């Protein structure tokens, strides 16, 4: 036999890059119509389920002139969040810099509208009394205050969301607390003391834009109580107002006092129902102040007429199911058809193949989620407002995080599904595993099928924790509330919960890479 000259191709070699692998996987994805349709279905289902909520709701509420119900429209704090601003304030104007000092010798409480109220003294853990500088007596105006509380010691709070702890312990005639606030420009400093001579700083806050004349005063407030009874699958709550009464002495206001006399105002005007129980008595520098209500951000709760923006995304779990099916099939169909051999013969570096697939399916899911949320959130919000429901305002950053977070949630779930599909190689099995791991715990938790304790643990331990990225309302330690998943609160918070999902996806991806590298195909 004669030797032959081996064939030499004329084609020039392109660079060897991850980009060409991405391009190949993207071409694969976009050329199967079912997958593209699956993504569109995910978006449509999410938006439609979101719209069904307000459209299907029979509630409507309007005032005499067609405006939404006043009682459902809380005032907004300086940072734009919804707040409760109900308290009894004994106050007078203070011009320019100055300070106020007081000694608190007692804080007691009682339940109002007693029928059904629990037994006990009625002092709430976050019943509070102390001194404050407030921009004005308008609800929602800026303030800074130091106070004693029912069970949380001395606190310095400002602008509804700010809270700094001072000394713990209850106040009584044998263990009185001295409190002091000083103003220097926009800077307010809070002090506490056990004896009126040795002072320590509780905190310093900056209230930018505080007018030169503020209201300085003594206040008392006590948040309402709720008793939630949970039985399997449902929860019922009851509650009512409480009243806090504080005894102050050694009250001393230093600085320019344009009026020089104290007046009392029941800000927020709850007034304790039919018989006015709030008010104050003055005797020299001693005051007795009784107040109800709270000075705090509003927190979301289930069944209330106030909605969070992520309420428009209740359908995300349904969209997620479609995404999971597409993402698992994106890989398992290659096993089913034997196409995985063509893929791995064309690109023998298997880890890179899986990475390219993850990037492609993750990006497709991200864009789907982003577009879905960008449509669903404003539409549902408008429908809810049209129904007279109140929608909690949130910052632009939070709204952005919820909208982009929808994309991120779908993207990471898709990558998890892809990885599980790689390991299991069967579409139905892989999709079922991922749906059971992500969607089921979420639905159980938010629909309060399970008691809230079990729900909270599910949303800590399962990949469903990732839904937390959609939570728009922060939890406030200084506001006693249920904070259950059904109320819209996830136990790990938005980023912690999302990190749990990411952890699962990363783990699955590592396992998938290991298995894919080792396996004969």
């Amino acid at each position: 036999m004669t030797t032959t000259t081996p064939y030499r191709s004329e084609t020039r070699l392109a660079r060897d890059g991850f980009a060409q692998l991405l391009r190949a996987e993207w071409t694969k994805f976009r050329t199967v119509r079912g997958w593209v349709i699956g993504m569109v279905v995910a978006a449509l289902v999410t938006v439609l389920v979101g719209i069904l909520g307000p459209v299907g709701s029979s509630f409507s509420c309007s005032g005499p002139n067609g405006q939404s119900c006043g009682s459902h429209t809380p005032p907004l704090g300086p940072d734009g969040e919804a707040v409760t601003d109900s308290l009894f304030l004994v106050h007078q104007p203070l011009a320019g810099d100055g300070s106020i000092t007081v000694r608190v010798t007692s804080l007691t409480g009682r339940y109002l509208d007693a029928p059904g109220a629990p037994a006990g003294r009625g002092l709430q853990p976050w019943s509070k009394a102390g001194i404050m500088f407030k921009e004005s007596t308008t609800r929602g105006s800026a303030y800074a205050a130091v106070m004693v509380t029912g069970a949380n010691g001395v606190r310095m709070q400002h602008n509804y969301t700010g809270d700094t702890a001072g000394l713990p312990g209850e106040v009584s005639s044998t263990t009185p607390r001295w409190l002091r606030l000083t103003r220097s420009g926009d800077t307010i400093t809070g002090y506490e003391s056990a004896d009126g001579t040795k002072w320590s700083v509780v905190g310093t806050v900056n209230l930018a834009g505080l007018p030169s004349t503020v209201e300085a005063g003594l206040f008392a407030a006590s948040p309402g109580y709720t008793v939630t009874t949970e039985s399997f699958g449902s929860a019922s709550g009851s509650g009512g107002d409480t009243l806090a009464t504080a005894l102050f002495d050694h009250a001393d206001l230093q600085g320019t006092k344009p009026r020089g006399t104290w007046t009392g105002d029941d800000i927020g005007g709850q007034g304790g129902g039919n018989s006015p129980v709030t008010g104050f008595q003055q005797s020299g520098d001693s005051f007795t102040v009784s107040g109800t209500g709270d000075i705090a951000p509003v927190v979301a709760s289930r069944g209330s007429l106030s909605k969070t923006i992520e309420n428009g995304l209740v359908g995300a779990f349904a969209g997620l199911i479609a995404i999971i099916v597409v993402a698992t099939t994106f890989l398992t169909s290659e096993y089913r058809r034997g196409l995985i051999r063509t893929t791995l013969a064309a690109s023998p570096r298997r880890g890179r193949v899986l990475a390219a697939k993850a990037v492609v399916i993750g990006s497709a899911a991200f864009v789907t989620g982003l577009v879905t949320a960008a449509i669903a959130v404003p539409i549902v919000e408008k429908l809810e407002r049209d129904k007279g429901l109140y929608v909690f305002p949130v910052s632009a950053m939070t709204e952005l995080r919820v909208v982009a977070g929808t994309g991120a949630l779908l993207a990471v779930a898709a990558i998890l599904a892809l990885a599980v599909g790689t390991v299991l190689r069967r579409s139905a099995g892989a999709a079922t595993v991922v749906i059971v791991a992500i969607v089921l715990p979420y639905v159980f938790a938010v629909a309060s099928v399970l008691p809230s304790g079990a729900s909270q643990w599910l949303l800590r331990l399962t990949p469903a924790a990732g839904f937390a990225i959609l939570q728009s309302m922060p939890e406030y330690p200084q506001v006693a509330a249920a904070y259950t998943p059904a109320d819209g609160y996830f136990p790990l918070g938005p980023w912690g919960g999302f990190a749990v999902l990411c952890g699962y996806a990363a783990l699955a991806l590592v396992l998938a890479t290991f298995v894919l590298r080792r396996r004969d195909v």
Partner: protein
Amino acid sequence: MEATIEVTGLRKRFGPAVALDGMSFTVLPGRITGFVGPNGAGKSTTMRVILGLDAADEGKALIGGRPYRSLRHPLRHVGSLLDAAALQPSRTARNHLLWLAHSQGLGAKRVDEVVGQAGLETAIRRKAGGYSLGMRQRLGIAAALLGDPPVLMLDEPFNGMDPEGIVWMRGFLRSLAAQGRAVLVSSHLMGELQDTADQLVVVGRGKVIADTSVADLIATASGDRVTLRTTERTPAMTVLARVGATVAATGPATLTVSGLPAERVVALLGESGVPFSEVAAHRASLEEAYMELTRGAVEFRAATAEETAR
């Protein structure tokens, strides 16, 4: 370095079943090498090992001197067709080629070229799910050619093709070899390779039984036998046996004579006055030669699960 496939001492077990048992052979450029053996002989497993899809327990498989998994644009080095049915049915044939081209840094222009070469222009925008097996084979050939590789490796490419397609495939493979490419074609039917292959690697039970040119194989199988056609079988047998030849009756009027050249047979019969109508050197068919070789290598089907379970 010669652009070839070199397989050295491959061994692989699937559980208790030995799939490859010291498989060794080399595919040379410029010719078509037939890779034949019964089902379960290890052909497909060998090909999967060459492509880095399966890992061998022992041994080496090299493409142009390099392991497949080290190739950065493997389709530029070797084009392969393992399973023509491995397609996403809802994707069009053209898009199938397109993603494969993209994975090698190639574009749509190259796709159009190979579509032309495989004669698929009219059907290329149809969904691959609607393709007949013969069309899928053509699509597989087109895919194997995408990288314009010096080595081609095709597993059972004649499967499911109509006679016209088989003729086309033969001519096409011949033209590829004529360009200097090394072409390895597997088949479990020797007849398919009769007029196609130059070289044969015959395998059975996971190893090479014969590695030879087609001409040599037929000559070996034929031996120095002579076929004799005569109506007078008994006198003929007597005359020929007397000089030491082995004579076997293979039909009512045919005898096969071994150990005696055709000229001597003619001379002896002439001297003895035994009439005959034809004396010819016996020529075995490739199929016969193959059956001869693989008789001992056909395995019980149950042991070949890996081959058929693909």
